[in-house]
């Protein structure tokens, strides 16, 4: 109601200013006749109805994006006879949890899941040892070829992995890196994207802090670890999420650079479920495999959607309504509040 009243007020002022255009510097507020007042009321009601209709349309549009995932979940719990008919309803009569077991056994999910986890953990654990120092050097140190990074990144963007895989494959086969963890990990350990991202954030830190540290005779390594890294900690979170998702979903690189099934990851395994030749694929099992593959990322998305969204668009600034703080921070605050309350009580005692 308050908003409506304010709107009315603004409109009235507008009309008044329109009437007194020649003397627009001294706006005169006219008193409303009952007719005008009624007209304004009707307008506001129409606006309200339109707002509701707009919301309804928006929600339907949003559901078109969400519906397939829900349908996938329902499909994965159907029996074979129900699954063939592609019934679009989301209601389940019986839940067949055996589909998941079957999918697990058929595609050797245990092995491939382990491979995916190892791949993700290796990359996430090792990458910062290589990325952060080089980003720091590009941002803060002086040497020849300081500006080459931008051009190399640009060339790397224009050279897609789909075009360059043949030379890299040759090189790997000469060195013997095909079908090995090091070969799989290497490009993401020294990715230009991550270095560029960290460099941009290192550059935002004011130069005075670094200079004061230098006056205290701190070396480059100390400045990097004790001043710069703590200051841009949120970037680590976004980069961590981004790399985890891209590694978990990576399909082309793993498929191209492995010949045997020793190192293949989950997406390749799920693809293998679909590739039963000559037979119609058993959709309920395929969907179960799909759900297993999607589950960790979707769970992460459910619990930290705003964080994930912010990370996926490269840590740009964006406002979300009613945004919750991240889980760890909340827990920390709760604990600290409790301690504080105990201290306060103790004070009065």
């Amino acid at each position, binding site marked *: 109601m308050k908003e409506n009243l304010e709107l009315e007020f603004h409109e009235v002022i507008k009309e008044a200013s329109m009437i007194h255009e020649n003397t627009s510097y001294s706006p005169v507020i006219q008193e409303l006749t009952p007719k005008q007042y009624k007209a304004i009321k009707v307008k506001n009601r129409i606006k309200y109805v339109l707002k509701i209709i707009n919301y309804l349309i928006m929600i339907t549009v949003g559901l078109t994006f969400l519906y*397939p995932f829900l349908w996938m979940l329902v499909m994965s719990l159907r029996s074979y006879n129900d699954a063939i008919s592609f019934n679009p309803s989301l209601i389940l009569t019986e839940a067949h949890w055996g589909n998941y077991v079957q999918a697990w056994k058929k595609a050797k999910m245990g092995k491939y899941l382990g491979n995916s986890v190892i791949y993700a953990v290796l990359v996430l654990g090792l990458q910062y040892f290589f990325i952060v120092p*080089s980003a720091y050097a590009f941002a803060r140190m002086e040497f020849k070829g300081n500006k080459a990074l931008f051009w190399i990144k640009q*060339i790397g963007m*224009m050279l897609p992995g789909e075009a360059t895989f043949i030379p890299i494959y040759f090189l790997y086969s000469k060195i013997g890196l095909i079908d090995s963890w090091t070969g799989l990990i290497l490009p993401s350990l020294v990715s230009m994207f991550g270095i560029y991202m960290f460099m941009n954030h290192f550059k935002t830190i004011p130069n005075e802090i670094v200079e004061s540290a230098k006056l205290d005779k701190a070396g480059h390594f100390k400045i990097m670890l004790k001043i710069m890294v703590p200051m841009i900690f949120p970037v680590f979170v976004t980069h961590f999420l981004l790399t985890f998702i891209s590694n978990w979903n990576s399909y082309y690189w793993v498929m191209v650079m492995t010949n045997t099934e020793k190192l293949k990851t989950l997406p390749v395994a799920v693809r293998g479920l679909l590739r039963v030749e000559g037979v119609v694929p058993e959709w309920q099992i395929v969907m179960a495999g799909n759900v297993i593959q999607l589950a960790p990322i979707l769970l992460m998305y459910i619990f930290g959607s705003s964080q994930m*969204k912010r990370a996926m668009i490269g840590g740009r600034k964006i406002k979300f309504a009613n945004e919750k703080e991240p889980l760890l921070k909340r827990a920390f605050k709760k604990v600290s509040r409790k301690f504080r309350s105990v201290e306060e009580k103790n004070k009065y005692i």
Partner: protein
Amino acid sequence: MSNSKFINQNEISEIRVEINNALKNIKNNFLEKENFRRRFYFEHEEELKQYKQQKDLYLAHAKNIKFEVKELFNKAKLKNKKQLDDLEIDYKFELEEIKQTKKLSLEEITLTERKVLKEIDNQLTLLNIEKKTLEQQKRPNLYQETKALEDKIDRLYLKKEAAKRNYKANVIHKNALLHEQKVPFLERIKKMKQIKAELKAIKVNEINNIKTETINLKAEIKKLQNEVYPDYAKDLAKINERIKNLENKKEDFAIKFKNHYETEKVRLEKEYNESLNKLNTLYNEEKSKINNNYALKLEQLQKENSKEILKQRKEEFYLLHKNNKAKYKELKKVIKSLEKQYKEDTKQFIKLKNDEKKLNHKIIKDNENILKSQKHLLNEKLKNMEDMRNKIINEIIIVSKEQLNLEVNKKELINNYKNFKEKNNYEKLVPLFDNYDKLVIENNEIIAIYNCLVNEKELIYEDKRSVNRILIDQKVTKRLKNVNTAYFFIAPAVFGALVFTVLPLVFMLVGAFFSIDATNLGRSQFVGFTNFYDIFMFDTQFQKSLVNTLIYALITIGLLSIVTLSMAAWLNRSTKVHNAVQTMVFTPHIASLVAISILWIALLSPQGIINQLLKVFGIEGPLWLLQENTSLLSVSMVTVWKDIGYYVLLIIAGLQGIPAYVYEAAKLDKAKKSTTFFKITVPLLAPTLSFVFVNKFINSFKVFAPIEIMTNGGPMGSSTVLSYWIYKAGRIGFNYGQAMAGAIILTILITIFTVLNHKVFKREIQY
């Protein structure tokens, strides 16, 4: 100096010199032998290399025979296919000609029929028009005659209305009169009832009269209408007869035409069938000829390349390889023997060195032992000497005592002293003292020699250590002092840039002009632009894929840019509902491409949900992924569906980044909404828009996973994209040169579009 008794330093040095000379000789021998070995290696290196290369060559030839035969077979197959295709095209062309002649002849017949029928129809229509005119001219003055009567009816109607009005007026008038006369209420009502009944009777009478009159008048009008001029019936009959005749004619013609048409049709069909049979026989004959030729060729090829011949060819190469091998083995034997000799020599050398060390140790120890023994001797001698000296001193003391005793008698004493001096041979003591001095000096010398030896030993060890240290320090310091520490920091980045961008680019640019051997890169040959030429002229798959990528990119980018911009403008607020919708729209972007493409295979299958939904609206949906027209479009729709959320969020972030005071300033200047949009939001959004467009272009050009999973290049190659073609040619077909040429074309496409994007969005922004 009595050196003969003690150890001789010169002797030790002589022995050393001898040993050293022997060692030098041995060393020289060793070095000569090594030099000989090295020379031998150097002379025979090229031979060894040649042998290795030849071995590889022969083995590769033996392997490649199979591929060559396969290529021959493929060529024969391709020729056969081309011939068959040409035949089919000719056959279809002739078939269409025959069909068209048949159609045209039938159409001519029908056209003549239609002309005749049209003429008859025209006559019929003319007759009908005459009939109508006759009907209209039944009574020419009817209107003028009936008009008076109709006027009368109108007047009667007016009279009727007037009567009704009179009745009402009279009632009111009478009521008023009664009111004036002040008649009481109940009486007035009674009177009014009477008066009303009287007036109603009068009115009803009048109306009835009028009704009867009007009925009469209407009957008269009907009579007038029904009356007809005298020759009307005859004329009508004549016209009807003519119409009947014409219709009969028409029916007769139709029956005749039907018969004629059927006979003609049968005749034409017979002709058509004959010509068809002829064509078919001709086609089959030619087909069989081509097939026979193909079969003959295949037989020939099989005869030429039968397993035995292949084996023979292989064996030839293997024989060559064996000869080569024998030579190679001989050389290797010689080298091995040389190496054995070298090993033995080295062993001997090491032994000698050890011996030298042992000798050195022995000499030092011997020296030490000798020195110790001599020290003992010297000590004993010294003791003896000291004893002697003591004795002499005692004697001197005794003498001096006697002197003191003899002091009293000076003269006597002097005499005695003189006598005593003469008696005790003082001169005999001098050599003894001399001896003592000599012994001391000798002892000192021996000790000095011993110290020298010890020092030498230590010096040898120290020299070795110091030399090593100095060498290492020089190496490290020289390199480390000149290098900036930054280069250690950026080492991984440099490594990544070199291995994953620069090297592949260079290799790609070079390799596209070679025909590459995967087994041995050294054997690949320079072929110039033939890879590109082959791709563009002969590889239909590549041409299709190139066109498809462009189409795919245009579809996705057009759809995305329209949908995302409008959605971003629509969802750009931060209420709860807006936020929830944003999260919903963003979900597909987080899921992997594999999962989403598998999901959409299910959704787009012929009995899938989307076709069910279309059925509700009464549309029969296409086969989507299994149909040539729609496969690429459906894949692009899926990717668009996936990417909408991402780009919408990006644009929303860009919109939120525009400061609010800009809009306020525009409001103060009373700018319209459209002008604010085009002159403020779009230029301020330019950086984000450029990022978005570049991303879209690159992503749409390198699309791979959805196409690989959903269509596998599609029915009849309708959805092969460049990246998929490269993967097929390079990874599966092992046709590396052509694949790299394709990759270069892909990169060129991407660079062109990115540069265009940068030029479009490159405006300096200031606010």
